């Protein structure tokens, strides 16, 4: 399944790039992330509890970052499996300076558009019976992630400026 889209963060590109690779921030922003540990350079181990409607999936997996071109792009490889199924994702994230039109930013209108494009494979029971819902659910989870990231970003900026 192809996924793609973009989200504009009210953060400068350098800062957005840093945040997207900060394990503490990622752990906070990934919906259902219960644990994220660094196990090597650009490699993390993760526990996720995904709750979508009545479905609860516990996933254990790995996140790897490759093709680093700070601050403009990197590739994110995610793998996870649990009782209800497994998933594999591979995506290229590109960061482009952009103008923020909505939301509050203490930086004014300077922001960063994060474009993502990739391929997600889902298997097991989850995919067998949930095919119809995979696309809309994946989009929802990505949207939630960026919303939280924008929030976290705004908070850290605030903390840096107002001691």
């Amino acid at each position, binding site marked *: 399944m192809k996924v793609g889209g973009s989200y504009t963060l009210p953060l400068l590109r350098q800062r957005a790039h840093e945040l997207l690779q900060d394990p503490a921030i990622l752990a906070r922003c990934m919906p259902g992330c219960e644990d994220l540990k660094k196990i090597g350079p650009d490699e993390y181990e993760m526990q996720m509890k995904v709750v979508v409607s009545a479905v*609860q999936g516990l996933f254990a997996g790995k996140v790897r970052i490759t093709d680093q071109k700070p601050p403009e792009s990197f590739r994110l490889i995610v793998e996870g499996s649990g009782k209800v199924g497994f998933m594999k994702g591979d995506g290229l994230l590109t960061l482009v300076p952009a103008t923020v039109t909505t939301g509050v930013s203490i930086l004014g209108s300077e922001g960063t558009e994060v474009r993502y494009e990739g391929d997600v494979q889902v298997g097991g*029971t989850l995919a067998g*019976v949930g*095919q119809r819902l995979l696309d*809309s*659910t994946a989009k*929802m989870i990505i949207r*939630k992630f960026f919303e939280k990231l924008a929030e976290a970003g705004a908070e850290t900026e605030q903390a840096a400026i107002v001691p």
Partner: protein
Amino acid sequence: MIPQNFEYSAPTSLKEALALIAKGDAKVLAGGMSLIPLMKLRLAAPEHVVDLSRIADLKSVHEDGKGEFPGGALHLGALATHFEIESSALVRSKCPLLAEVASNIGDVQVRNVGTIGGSTAHADPAADYPAGLMALEAKVHLTTAKGERTLPIDQFIVDALSTALKPNELVREIIVPVETRGTGFSYQKLAQPASGFAVVGVAARVRKSAGKVTFVRVGVTGLAGKAFRATRVEKLLEGTSGSAADIQKAAAQAAEGVDANTDLHASADYRRQMTKVFTARALTQALSRAD
């Protein structure tokens, strides 16, 4: 096909039910048309299930002259089944769009057991009700052990399978307006043949006066993560004479600016195209029923 062990409670009053879910870790069972299959597949394994089916209060369907809508409102208890709504003389005469939507859900077995509250709280992006509820600008009455609140449907449904419902909160009623005389309505759906879910579904309400279209509401389900009101279509059709060309021109905007779903059964482009086609069909039938 056998669910994991779980604790089961079947309270007989709303108060008891609210006390049971107050801790926030129980799963509420209404008709069970979504939850039970998920439990049998072990995709859902709640430890505690609170079955609402014995609470008579939640089954009431009645009219209320004052309050929520200027022309009066119909209050549909969360446990009213699709069949009850489809066949209720009150709903058919006062809010016929909702009865028409209900009659299009799944199959007769599902309609006999599935409920409006359960379906709305589940917020499946391809469910039929949300299209009708958006077009009706319905409200959702929620309750906890401590208080109550009422949300417009477009604030209640947040995203695919996500609502504003808190873990300790229940959907008590869905509130829809009593339809103004002369309002035309239609629900047109492209059903997925195996599941009956809407690939796309479009609900329309229209009013005409002196040869002009004065009021249009269009709700679309199945196309995006959540059902929505196609306001561009509404604006384009209002004020026209409602000719076939006017309908085509307005319906062409139905999928504009929408991030469309894609799955094995229908690609995003196909869904967008079908949304335009079914919007035109819904508007055409609604206008032919308006007077």
